[in-house]
């Protein structure tokens, strides 16, 4: 019996009157990596940002349908509390510029005013940085500013910052699109490691990346879900013609 941690039911998202995500139904499985791919402007980022309700920060947005996280409709939850259960990593590394590496990792607690003892803090920082495969590189410079790190390191710091909150799901919004190939390879490896502890939804416009790291793949085109299934099957025997054309580079 597979466990579905997130159920997206007949979900649509709008910018004003534009329907950018169209009636998508999708189930995200626990401790697996689900890749969402598609050409630019297909609504994949909007879908992802709907899951932690970052989408609604833009003016004139609305949604219909439902997204259910472990039995709770997220649109009935307080968005602030919801976002503590769902971590997010963005396209560009965005560590807090005023904070040290240490403070960046613990930022979720600090900014939310959650009191921790020094020991708890230390252990969360160490554990999160280890999970993000950054500990060995920064353990002697935890008091340095996070912005002194390289791009790839900064992105891993952002992953550690999201992991520190012990989220149930991590949303990765094209996490390697601003990184060089070497840093990208490193992060991809890390993502595969991470699925042991957390469910991952990865948005990418990089087809090869979806093939390399994901267990399931969803293909979005013009806001519609064209195909969803086990990654291997999608990439070898796609059932929809548009998926095949996208994978073979006919468009996108």
């Amino acid at each position, binding site marked *: 019996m597979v466990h579905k941690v997130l159920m997206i039911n007949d979900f649509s998202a709008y910018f004003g009157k534009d329907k950018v995500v169209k009636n998508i139904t999708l189930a995200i499985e626990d401790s697996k990596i689900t890749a969402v791919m598609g050409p630019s402007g297909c609504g994949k980022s909007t879908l992802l940002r709907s899951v*932690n309700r*970052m989408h609604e*920060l833009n*003016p004139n947005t609305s949604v219909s349908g439902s997204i259910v996280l472990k039995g709770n409709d997220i649109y009935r939850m307080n968005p*602030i*509390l*919801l*976002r*503590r*259960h769902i*971590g*997010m990593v*963005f396209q*560009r590394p*965005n*560590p*807090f*510029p*005023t904070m040290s590496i240490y403070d960046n990792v613990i*930022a*979720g607690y*600090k*900014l*939310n*005013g959650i009191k921790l003892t020094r020991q708890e803090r230390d252990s969360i920082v160490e554990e999160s940085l280890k999970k993000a495969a950054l500990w060995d590189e920064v353990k002697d410079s935890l008091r340095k500013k996070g*912005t002194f790190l390289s791009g790839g390191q900064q992105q891993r710091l*952002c992953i550690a*910052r*999201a992991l520190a*909150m012990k989220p149930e799901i991590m949303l990765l919004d094209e996490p390697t699109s601003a990184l060089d190939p070497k840093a990208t390879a490193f992060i991809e490896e890390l993502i595969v490691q991470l699925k042991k502890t957390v469910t991952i939804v990865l948005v990418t416009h990089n087809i090869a990346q979806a093939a390399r790291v994901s267990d399931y793949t969803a293909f979005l085109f013009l806001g519609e879900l064209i195909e969803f299934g086990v990654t291997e099957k999608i990439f070898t025997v796609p059932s929809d013609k548009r998926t095949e054309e996208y994978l073979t580079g006919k468009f996108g």
Partner: protein
Amino acid sequence: MQNKKIALRLIKDRLFSTVLIIISSFSVVPLGFILYFLVVKGATAINLEFLLSGPNPYGEPGGGIAHAIVGTLILILLAAVISIPFGLSIGIFLAEFQKSKLAYWVRLGVDILQGIPSIVIGIIAWSWIVRPMRAFTALSGGIALALMMLPIIVRSTEETIKLIPTSIKEASLSLGVSYYHTILKVILPSGISGIVCGILLSVARIAGETAPLIFTAFGSRFMNLNIMKPVESMPLLIYRYASSPYRDLHTMAWGASFVLVVFVLTLNIVAKGVCKRWCIKY
């Protein structure tokens, strides 16, 4: 033929940039003259007594401007305490709700406020505060100066916050941090250099204001720490001493001018340093 044309163009180019350089160099000439005169005429007036004691009785030589220095500091402090909370709040509002109707009108209002002549602000502070209270007070002077500081703080806060990338804000919100904590703990600290810089420059701007104080702080010949009483200020003292018929008062006016200009210059230089040193890289 062709070559000649190009040569002519090159000469024109050279000429143009030379003219720009010469004209730009002229801009420092007035400042140079001002500083030269102040040093020659004012620096000689300055000694410990000048800086540390109040005025002597009329006709007696010596005495100092300590009461004016303290008064100016009190006025600046009052103005800052009043205008900084308002200025920051309005600046944040304008940056965060850029497109709202209210923001449009507030921005317009702040811009117009910046253009209102300082003497008019003095008169308004007089009719709002001095007349109802039936007393010239340091407080009313502080409020008048706060009105002058406000637009500078608002605009510098707004511009600074607009420059902070949205990704920083998103990072905070995605961690489940509330909006107001995001603003107070993430956005404001990220823009601290620009904001502090704006505050320092606004202080430098009002330190030498005379007109708003004529009807409010009024001036006084005594050391006064009570904000409900009239207080002396540097520019008021300079104005009165310089328009008096006595030579030794003229010298004191020069000395006070020197002190005031050094103070303003220092503020400007410190502000530049703050901008550079505290600048945050994203």
